[in-house]
């Protein structure tokens, strides 16, 4: 029963994609908006796409590819005006060249005239839904009759059986609460989820974002008046994690295997780039479902990844050795049919994970990285920020994302004075470029760069009340979520822990120390599935922490995130893009 929501989503999404690829006839070309390529390949491999008659596959770019030999061209894109304008250009180009080609030959006569230029058909599938604006743009371009616009309703990308992502860049949109559209999008996605798995009977959460999400969700649910879905498998409960309550965690350095791989190798839609063995790098799919090795590694503290890999390699060798022991024909046959496919899969995945672990290990051996890590831990534990370190890092043009993240952390903890912050601003823009004035401004607006006017004990109190710093973490057999950040228990996950099993003490502490308002709908109880919704993105380490909570508290927990974040992506998101 645990997998139903996952499989329902995968099935629905694949059906949608299948429907999309089946449109049109003849030779088909598929043109995908690059930012969606991860989502598409997560759901369908190239064989699936070929099965549907797609012969050409390309990414959307300003250069117009020559697709004149294809009868149908299928575009997949987000409902973004700029992207749609680009597609309109392409279609205009294709139509013009088709006219040129058919012009002279149309006067040719003879019953056996050779086929002239194909009359092409165009389809645009908008993810997750087409909008009136998209249609208006095409209408203004007088293309609405030429392009068949349809929805590709993939709202949530199932990454793992217990992890769904909207893949919607939402951190900056949500955190300062400037853009209610992300909430709108999320509400529609959650409505879609509800119709797949049944309604949420109880909701818990806290914070302004959680509150406005709940308001919007309730409103939209009423307006849509979906036919009440059939729920066969008990109740669904929802926990809302408001990122504005915990901006600290995503800026910290994660210390789980997946978290570090994400930090250093950038996981996009569950894919990571790995060495292609001499050729150009290839995409590797991280999935606990098909990869037993990843299944073991995913949530581990990186400190135990090395030994685990060693053990796995030994086991694999021993298993392969058993082939030699198989003497009789039946034994060999049994080995080949039962074990071999599994073994081959492992043998393929193991070196890739070893490679990933090596590159992560190399990165964390770096002296500066360790200085930053140390500074983070000192900051959290003793509310002090090593100003000299930051100065020095800037003098040496160390990775700007890391420097900014550290400054932001200092501000969030409440130990950066205004004078210091002004100084850093000047130093930062001089060191990394004046355009970062805009970056700085955006982070200020996001509430990440606020100087402390009067010293506060807010963080110290919170740290104490919720046990955010754990001295002895057992990384091999973790019993506390603090293992995910080697000593720091993510605040977000501590809140989830509270809502899963509230105590009077934590309830008081939370309502005293964290901004409201509280969100409480229905009787939460202890039975049924729990969906933990991270409004504004989640880190992989937090996912691991929530998984541990689920295991230790015996709850069936699924994480739904607007996007997967880490400090690099958050900081890079605030920087001026040159597109």
């Amino acid at each position, binding site marked *: 029963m645990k997998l139903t929501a996952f499989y329902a989503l995968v099935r629905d999404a694949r059906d949608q994609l299948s429907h999309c690829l089946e449109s049109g*006839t*003849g030779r088909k070309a598929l043109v995908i908006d690059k930012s969606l390529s991860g989502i598409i390949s997560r759901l369908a491999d190239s064989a699936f796409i070929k099965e549907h008659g797609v012969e050409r596959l390309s990414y959307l770019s300003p250069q117009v590819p020559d697709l004149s030999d294809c*009868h149908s061209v299928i575009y997949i894109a987000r*409902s973004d*005006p*700029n992207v749609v304008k680009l597609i309109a250009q392409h279609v205009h180009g294709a139509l013009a060249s088709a006219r040129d080609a*058919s012009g002279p030959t*149309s006067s*040719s*006569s*003879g*019953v056996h*005239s050779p*086929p*002239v*230029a*194909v*009359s092409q058909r165009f389809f645009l599938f908008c993810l997750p839904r087409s*909008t*009136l*604006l*998209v249609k*208006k743009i095409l209408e203004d371009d007088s293309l609405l*009759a*030429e392009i*068949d616009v349809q929805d590709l309703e993939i709202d949530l990308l199932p990454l793992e059986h217990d992890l769904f992502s909207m893949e919607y860049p939402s951190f900056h949109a949500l955190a300062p609460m*400037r*853009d*209610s*559209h992300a*909430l*709108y999008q999320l509400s529609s996605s959650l409505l879609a989820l509800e119709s797949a798995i049944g309604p949420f009977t109880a909701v818990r959460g806290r914070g302004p974002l959680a509150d406005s999400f709940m308001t*919007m969700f309730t409103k939209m649910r009423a*307006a849509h*008046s979906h*036919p009440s879905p059939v729920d066969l498998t008990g109740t669904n409960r929802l926990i809302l994690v408001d990122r504005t309550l915990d901006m600290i965690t995503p800026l910290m350095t994660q210390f789980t295997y997946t978290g570090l791989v994400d930090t250093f190798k950038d996981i996009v839609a569950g894919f990571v780039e790995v060495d292609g063995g001499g050729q150009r790098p290839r995409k590797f799919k991280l999935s606990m479902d098909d990869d037993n090795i990843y299944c073991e590694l995913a949530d581990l503290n990186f400190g135990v990844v090395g030994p685990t890999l060693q053990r796995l390699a030994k086991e694999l060798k021993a298993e392969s050795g058993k082939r030699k022991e198989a003497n009789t024909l039946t034994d060999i046959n049994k080995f080949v049919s039962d074990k071999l496919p599994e073994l081959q899969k492992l043998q393929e995945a193991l070196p890739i994970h070893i490679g990933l672990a090596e590159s992560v290990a190399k990165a964390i051996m770096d002296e500066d990285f360790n200085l930053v890590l140390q500074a983070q831990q000192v900051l959290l534990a003793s509310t002090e920020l090593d100003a000299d370190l930051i*100065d*020095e890092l*800037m*003098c*040496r*043009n160390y990775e700007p994302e890391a420097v900014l993240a550290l400054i932001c952390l200092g501000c969030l903890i409440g130990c950066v004075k205004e004078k210091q912050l*002004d100084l850093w*601003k*000047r*130093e930062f*823009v*001089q*060191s*990394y*470029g*004046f*355009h970062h*004035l*805009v970056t700085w*401004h955006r982070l200020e607006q996001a509430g990440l760069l606020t100087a402390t006017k009067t010293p506060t004990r807010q963080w110290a109190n919170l740290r104490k009340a919720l046990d955010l710093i754990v001295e002895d973490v057992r990384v091999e057999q973790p019993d506390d979520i603090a293992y995910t950040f080697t000593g720091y228990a993510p605040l977000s996950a501590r809140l989830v822990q509270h809502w899963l099993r509230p105590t009077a003490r934590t309830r008081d502490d939370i309502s005293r120390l964290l901004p409201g308002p509280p969100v409480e709908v229905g009787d939460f109880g202890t039975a049924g599935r729990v969906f933990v919704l991270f409004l504004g993105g989640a880190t992989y380490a937090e996912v691991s922490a929530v998984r541990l909570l689920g295991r230790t508290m015996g709850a069936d927990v699924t994480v739904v995130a607007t996007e997967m974040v880490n400090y690099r992506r958050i900081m890079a998101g605030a920087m*001026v893009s*040159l597109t």
Partner: protein
Amino acid sequence: MATMARDGWIALGESAVCQRVVYDLDWDLSNLDAMHVAQSPTGAFIGMARDDRKPYFTPGGAKSLHFPLCIYSATGQLLRSIPWDREPASILKLGWTDNDQLVAVLDDASVRLYPVYGDPVVLSLGEEVAKNGIASARIWPTGLAVLTKSGQFTVIGSWSSPVPRNYLHYVFTEQPASWTHVVASNTISGSVELLVPVANYLVVVSEMDHVEKPYSSLQTVQVSPQANFWACVLSSFMLEIRLAQTNQVVARLDLKSVVECDSNGFQLAWCGEDAVLVVFAESLIIMHMSGQHFAIDLFEPVILTEAHECCFQLTSTELTMFTPVLYATMNVFKIGSTHPGAILIDAIAHYSRKSAQSVDLLEGLLKDQQLRIALATCLEAAGQAWDPKLQHQLLQAVQFGRVWMDQDVTLRDEYSATCQRLRVLNAVRNRSIGIPLTALALQRLGYVGLVRRLTRARQHLLAHRLAEYLHLAHAKVEIVADWAKLKIMHSQDFDVNVLVATIVARVQASTATVDAALDYSELAVAAYRAGQPAVATKLLDHERDPARQVPLLMDMSQPQVALVKALDSFDRDLVHLVLVYLRSHLLLNEFFKTVLACPRAIPYLEQYARDHDRQLLRDFYSVDDRHVERGYLHMENAERAETVEAKLAELREAVTAFSSTRKSAADQKIAEQALDLVHEQAQIAKDHCDAGASTASLELPEGKSVNDMILYLIRTGQMTRAAKLKSKLQVPEKRYAWLMVRGLVAARDWRELERYAAATRKPVIGYPPFARELIAVGATDEAKKYINKCDIKLRIDLFLGIRAYVEAAQVAVQLSDMPGLVEIRKQTTAPADVAVVDDLLTQLRRK
């Protein structure tokens, strides 16, 4: 009963076709063959227009020069007359869509779709078709095809997306005498296919491809409704039915042996999948699948219309229907039938004559356990019967037989469903409604489809009653909506409030039990189009879905209301849509005024403009006095600028923007510094060019920051320039020192580095950075010099970092650090080093 039931049967071997006059026609028309006539697929409507290519003689004379385009009911009542005297184009072909819209193909390559009531939709078949002219056209319920005079086909495959597709790859040099189509759902290619007899070929043209099949010379082909069979008339007037898949001949008839054949103008149509009808000037021939045929003499011109399960025949006086007699009816009423159903009918006949034989017959059925079959067959036959009297009698027979049986739930349910169906059928077949609907057609249409048809024919009352009777809640909503639209259109002089109240009350009464709400926006559109904007606005207040409200409000020139509604929906795209609309319809200052009046819209405007119209955003910030924001925008633009001039201009704008308030003094200073930096960069690039070949090997400054710039200058030895830049941009000593070290190390200029280290007694950053930077580039020997100047406690680690074990050990000795020295010894591997370290170890031990 049996003789009555067999009225109009045309026996064709084991089967039969029933010919039934359905309605006498009320119209006063005589010469149908000079007209375009088309009957809708259900038979309910007849479209008629004058065929301009044919001579037309009227007894009245001049008045009929311009015959209007007319829509009649199946009983010949004129429902609608569309004047055609001012139309520039003439009609080439009429037809109907499957949702009762009259299709007219005109000779100017346009297509018009007329709903029975309401405004037409005009489609174009494209420039190519217009240029070449249309030679012939075919219209079928889901689409149409035209053959141009240049010999190419253009096809509309569905009315829901009526895009004309040009089948360019096959060109007919000669106009074929006839051709036909196969709908897309029945073809393998997935597109509409056309079958064209050409000489000794049959050309099958699909959208992507064509096939030429050798074929004995054909005149006409007609594909059966479900595309299982082809009916062909050969040039020799041989009528053949062939299997579509294998082309095998199923039945064959030499028409010349039956009637007088006339090759110009015969009609060929299917009657279900069972039989084919051929009409010549004076006779009609029916050929059954079995090869049996029957000829009927005709006394006036007829027009055949093929429907899915029957065939209509229209004359100037009556509408006749040919239907295959279905199995159940056949079994019950065939002469000499021994089917249980027939026996049951026999039994009831005896019963009514009070003959004891009726009991014997029934007991016989019971004994053979065939009463159930008899009842089911009679029930089915009742469902198929047209005459209400016959229906009644058959149902009575079923009632009579049921007494003899145990309770049978299926039969009971089937019985009540049949009664319900017959009530509906009789109601719509009634002359006052005039839809000649067969039971099979109803099955295909469904109750909802039927109710929709009635609604379109403005039979609101009957539709509503049927919906009520059949519990079709959603259909009821549609009916009310349609009624309301009509009401709005015909209530121009009503008080607005009263009208809206009436409509809303009626709507709410009908929708009370349904959770699907009525689409008020549709009503509002109707009201707006009917010139009642006030009613429209009032109705829109009842609409729940903003995505429907907003575009309409804009169309109704109420953009402010639209903006508020869009904001209420939280749907960003909807808000952007309104903003785009406003921007294109208002002057800039009016646009800003509108947006500023609605503060919630401001973030949306900023967001949209940031991505799509940055000039607009700039103007907006200026108007709204948000100079600091504008400054940041200019900074961003500067980063994106492609030329130095543009960059400078943007930065200057930024400086001015920041200078407007004291709060942004710091930002102003930064912008000024940015300006200085760009100036400097431009200057250097210029010098570079002037210097020409001698320094061409030096690459231009890379990167964009002050650090990058100073590093470049130091690396290329332009120390004075670097120092000038440092003081101009107020670079702190400490960072400058770092840059100095980094730059000199990158240039591998050890002497200059030494000089710089010696210039001050102790560098502000100390010596470790020197050592570290040198280590990073692998200059270990150089590094050692600076390590020795570092704080003594740091030295061991630094030396170990470059594997200088001996030096590290010496430091350990100086510090008397025994554990450190032991650790160093452990790491040492080179034999020469080991000896020295061992020595030092013993030395320290001795101390």
